[in-house]
């Protein structure tokens, strides 16, 4: 895995929502093709902001983001979708007044011709969604919405999938399901970068983790190493499973 080429490279990012207020103060990350990366850190560390800045949703003031050898710093989200990045926001991640089918159609908006074949492929990963394809997404439960959101992001067959706290607000059962599914998606060859509150569960499934603190990437190591790291245990994992 370590010989795989670098697919996403973020270098020394400074970014924030409001002019003059930086939330990221020098974040860097290197992701290799096919990796499953977990980003953990305390509340307010800038995890979500980091992910959003990669996806062009938060303006980057300095630093660069590369996708392969293309510079994608501050490229518009819809353009990034075309270039093979998918993004699943933490909240409001479905179109509530559209049906499940229409939600997925929006996912394949830029490739309408491939919609049918993609829908069949995604249907195998999420059979429940095929059953509910004519139901309005707004009437689905949190777990089902999360499925719609992931399926929507996969419709364009992305090379890289960004997940913003996919387990947030779900029951423990559903959380497990989400992590298993994320792993499955990753095994199909999609590089996954996920931000998680549930640090332990996240580190268990990911190849490598990044620890963010106060807007900077504090350190990185393999998921297993971070799980055993005394500092990480103390700060983010508590003592439960130590």
């Amino acid at each position: 895995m370590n010989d795989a080429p670098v697919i996403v490279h973020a270098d020394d990012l400074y970014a924030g929502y409001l002019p003059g207020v930086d939330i990221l103060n020098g974040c860097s990350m290197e992701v290799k093709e096919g990796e499953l990366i977990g980003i953990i850190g305390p509340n307010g560390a800038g995890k979500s902001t980091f992910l959003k800045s990669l996806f062009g949703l938060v303006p980057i003031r300095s630093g660069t983001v590369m996708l392969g050898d293309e510079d994608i710093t501050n490229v518009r989200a819809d353009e990034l979708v075309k270039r093979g990045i998918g993004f699943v926001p933490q909240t409001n991640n479905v179109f509530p007044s559209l049906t499940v089918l229409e939600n997925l159609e929006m996912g394949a908006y830029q490739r309408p011709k491939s919609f049918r074949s993609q829908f069949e492929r995604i249907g195998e990963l999420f059979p429940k969604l095929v059953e509910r394809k004519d139901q309005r997404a707004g009437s689905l439960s949190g777990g089902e919405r999360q499925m719609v959101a992931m399926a929507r992001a996969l419709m364009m067959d992305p090379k890289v999938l960004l997940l913003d706290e996919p387990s947030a607000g779900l029951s423990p059962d559903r959380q497990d399901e989400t992590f298993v599914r994320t792993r499955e998606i990753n095994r199909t060859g999609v590089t996954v970068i996920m931000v998680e509150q549930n640090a332990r569960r996240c580190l268990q499934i990911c190849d490598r983790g990044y620890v963010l603190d106060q807007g900077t990437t504090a350190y990185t190591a393999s998921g297993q190493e971070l799980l055993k790291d005394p500092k990480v245990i103390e700060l983010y994992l508590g003592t439960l499973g130590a």
Partner: protein
Amino acid sequence: MTNRIDRRVLLRALIVLVVAAAAVTLLGALGSPAAASSTDAVAHATVAAGDATAGIAQADTAVHADAVTTEGDSGTNRYVQQLVNGIVFGLLLALASVGLSLIYGTTGLSNFAHGEQVSLGALLTFFFTTQQPVSVPFIPVEFTIGWPLIPSALAAIALAAGSGWLQDRFLWSPLRRRRVSIVQQMIVSIGLSLALLNFIQWWFGAERQRLTTSIDTRIDFGLFQVGQTTLWSVLISLLCLGGVAFFLLKTRTGRATRAVSDNPSLASASGIRVEKVVRLVWIMATGLAAVGGILLALYDNAAAFDVGARLLLLMFAAVTLGGLGQAFGALVGSLVIGIAVEMSTLWLGTDLKYAVALGILILVLLVRPQGILGRAERVG
């Protein structure tokens, strides 16, 4: 639990409404000023109909006065007649306000300048169709165009739609890009509304302008009568509204428009070019407002520079009543408002008819805060 409370509130509201209606009817029977003002208004309007500067409310009444005076010599029933008038007015109002709803849905903006788009449609048509010499602002040359009504209307609609493109390209889109808050944008729209209102008055004058000199022949349907032009207007508005529904439900761009209404940042994250969709919405909204304005001007016999400004509150009421941002909500809300406005003139003074519409808005919102078609979203 909530349902039971809703029903209790609804019941109370209905009782209030019925008691109020009964009181007014009773007062009317006793010859109180409320009823007198109603008959006065009708008489007044008939006199004023020839007066070119008569206000819209008066001209409205003139139309209804027609309906009222024809009663008796034909078999028209005034309740049915007012219901039909209400449906007609509702459909035209829907046409004018569906764009307001689309813009609100996709951008979150309550566009106070939407009324002026309605006026613009009517008066640009007048500009092309009138036999009088006309001129363009800042160019001191007078000329006569005098086209027939239909090409004039089409040209007006095209220009109005172009004004939508222009506004979004040079005003709203830059404001959104600079992340100007929605309240600030709304204030800008109020300013734009006043500027456009004065501009239109300066260009076309304050008089009520007639789009056509021909007199509408009324067709007798037994219980009610409808003008021939009005029938055409109804047909056109049904076609336009059907077209909007088809666009939103059956086309890919239409579904993307609904997606942007639901969640613009997610739409963008799905690969939809939100700005492109919003630009299209502005063009459609202003074009439809112009169609609404033209048809309303034909329905009311004439239009003045402030026709849209007078309608704005009703349009907002219709859109809010139907469910903010719901395109079909605008249709339902407009029909309710249209019927309420016209039917209320049977019992209440004509001067009160817009107040009735807004009263209904308040009542509905007390019972169903999300509007008639608005959906309460499940959380979590």
